[in-house]
């Protein structure tokens, strides 16, 4: 395992995930000694913490099974698909907002229901 693979392994560990949860919920607890100017390695570690936090959350609510941990590829693929879905929903919301026309004048176009 190279350093980046070990970093990912570390972020995946129960210890790291529990600490991450505690940092999110408690004031004053920090992941790193520095509170700003993160190194690239720290940024990467943080992104892996968020990735495994999202996956663990979906396992806990029975959205997916823990077979996802069989391969890192499964983890990456699932998050990619999930994020694409999120972007799609945001796009649809934006388009829906554009359909609202309120023109001051003789005619007012109300959005269709149903």
């Amino acid at each position, binding site marked *: *395992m190279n*350093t980046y693979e*070990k*970093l990912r*392994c*570390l972020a995946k*560990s129960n210890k790291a995930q529990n600490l991450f949860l505690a940092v999110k919920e408690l004031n004053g607890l920090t992941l*790193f*000694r*520095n509170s700003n*100017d*993160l*190194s*690239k*390695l*720290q*940024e*990467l*570690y943080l992104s892996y913490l968020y990735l495994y936090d999202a996956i663990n959350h979906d396992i806990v609510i029975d*959205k*997916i*099974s823990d*077979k*996802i941990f*069989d*391969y890192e*590829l*499964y983890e*990456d*693929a*699932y*998050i*990619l*698909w*999930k994020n*694409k879905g999120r972007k799609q929903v945001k796009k649809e919301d934006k388009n829906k907002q554009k359909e609202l026309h309120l023109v001051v004048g003789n005619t007012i176009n109300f959005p269709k229901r149903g």
Partner: protein
Amino acid sequence: MENRLNEAQRIIKEMEKETELSKVEELIKDNKISFEHDKKQYRVRLLNLSEKEELDTLRRKKFGQLLKDKDILLEKDLIEDYKQRGIDIADLDEQLKKLNAQDIDFQLKLGEAIAKNEGDTIFNNYREQIESVRNQKKEINAQKTLLLQFSLENALLNYVAQVITYLSLDVCENNNWKRMFSNLEEFQTYHDEQLINKAGQYSMYLQYL
């Protein structure tokens, strides 16, 4: 007896893994990396503003020198030369583009299959397809890297990596940290290659990915 041996080996592997992970923890606990070399304490840290300006000045000077050197070609000129010799790098780029699109496409299908829990057979099928695409990508990337390794842009990147290491390496003397090298030439002619390589690797972890 064999079971106990297997169990002992498993425990040793786990302990080794824990040791490796705690070494990585040391690399991320701060935005500086301290290490010992030949009984002396060193550290690599992020550049401050004046060091970034120094880096920028050195980079611009080097770029100017490289431009004047007729033996070093810009990437686009190197690509043109290769094309005249029958090696089409634009074609390699096209192939990479298609493979990247396939990689993403298969990953999305795999992600959806995982979300729908479609089963191991389907997962393995997508995984094998993705691995095949990635192996092809690796081959093409390696080919392209080899072909363009002597470009001006690459030479500049290597120089910048050197300068960053030179600027970010400190040594501890009498409990005080001070910059190890007072000028670039001193860094470039320093006798201890092992120290320079170690510092170079750590500065990469801090500044690049």
